[in-house]
């Protein structure tokens, strides 16, 4: 199977998990984002342009199928993956995805993704900036990074996903 299509096939089961199982393990409405983990992982394998296209597609389907604001996730994922794409290096793919450096990249991207998503999906000007920053972005990014540990551990043991 083409490596370019693989993440799209993984996306739909992950989206179901994101919308049904993740709410069960979310803490006070703060949950990890499996979609961004997948997007970042494949962006670090395929490069910035491929990652952006993937992030945009993932965001589009996420918005369409989650009941959220159409475009919010498209915007946030595209920008987050674009930034993560700066860490892409053809010669250091395994180093980037099978080491703890992946968690650093994931944290940055997840934070940017959550922050932009919170702002783009917010229609109320009275929403506290601190709430958006802390509970809308920082805590979900931390939680996503913790879940990202599983990817690193799996990669370290078994090689490519």
């Amino acid at each position, binding site marked *: 199977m083409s490596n370019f299509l693989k993440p799209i096939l993984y996306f*739909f089961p992950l*989206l*179901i*998990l994101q*919308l*049904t*199982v*993740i*709410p*069960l393990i*979310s803490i*006070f*409405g*703060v*949950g990890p984002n499996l979609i961004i983990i997948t997007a970042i992982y494949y962006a670090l394998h395929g490069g*910035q*342009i491929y990652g*952006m*296209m993937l992030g*945009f597609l993932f*965001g*589009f389907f996420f*918005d*369409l*199928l*989650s*009941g*959220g*604001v*159409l*475009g*919010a996730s*498209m*915007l946030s994922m*595209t*920008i987050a993956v*674009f930034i993560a*794409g700066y860490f892409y290096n053809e010669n250091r793919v395994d180093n980037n995805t099978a080491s703890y450096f992946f968690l650093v990249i994931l944290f940055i991207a997840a934070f940017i993704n*959550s922050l932009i*998503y*919170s702002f*783009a*999906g*917010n*229609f*109320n000007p*009275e*929403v*506290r900036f*601190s*709430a*958006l920053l802390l*509970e*809308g972005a920082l805590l*979900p990014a931390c939680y996503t990074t913790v879940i990202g540990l599983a990817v690193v551990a799996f990669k370290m043991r078994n090689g490519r996903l």
Partner: protein
Amino acid sequence: MIKNFQRLGNQFKEYVLLVVLVVVSLISISLSENPQAKKLKAFALSNFAVLSELAESGSSIFSKDVSLEELKLENAKMTLELSRLKNAALENDELRRMINMRDTSTIPLIPVRIVSKLATKIQGNYIVNRGSSSGIIKGMPVINYQGLVGLIMDVSVDYSVVRNLNNSGLNIAVTLQRSNVDGILSFDGRNLVMKNIPTTYDVKVGDRIETSDFSSLFPPSIPVGKVAKKESNELGLLHSLVVKPYASIEAASSLFVIGIVPSKQINQLEMNLLKKP
């Protein structure tokens, strides 16, 4: 000239692509309330929610119990009834005659189950397993056995999207039951807040808050929550009331759609208030 543009395009192709994708995303956000976009979402939702429902039923295998669902339905009806009776008692205390009180207990309740949740702090949404085929239409209120949960925002044939209280896009006209102080309840990203309540008004922590008579989105007297905290502004003239909802929004599973069909014109006017400026 064209070659120069091509060269620039090739040199900065990542940035060009980023700008294009960002512009498309921003256009999508601005058109997200467009009927065509809603139609597309409803179509996608109705197909995908089947899978979500299957996954959800697998994950909730331990909690599925028909008698429990029936008890929750009964409880929801009793919550509405209790709320109505509390109002009646207060009015009797004030020696006021009960006139034209809406009998909320006769309102049909449509039981629904959440098949997926969008777990973010700003966009609180659920997808539930009933849609227009069960008589649900956009704008119907949603409760659980504890109190108000949200509002139906999108409907497909078999599924609906509920905008819950933890959504910054939902503003609700509410009233304090004891003192009849009216206000607008909205989500500030952390708490439900009633803003700009004059400090001269009689408000106490623990006061019960319910939907107001002024709202045509929601029937009156649906319990919403209670005052958890009072915060004064700098001048001390106005309060912000932090409200703790009765319904546990994050842990909700079984809900009830109040099957009322408000006047189309009023409904349209109110729904306009929910749209982006």
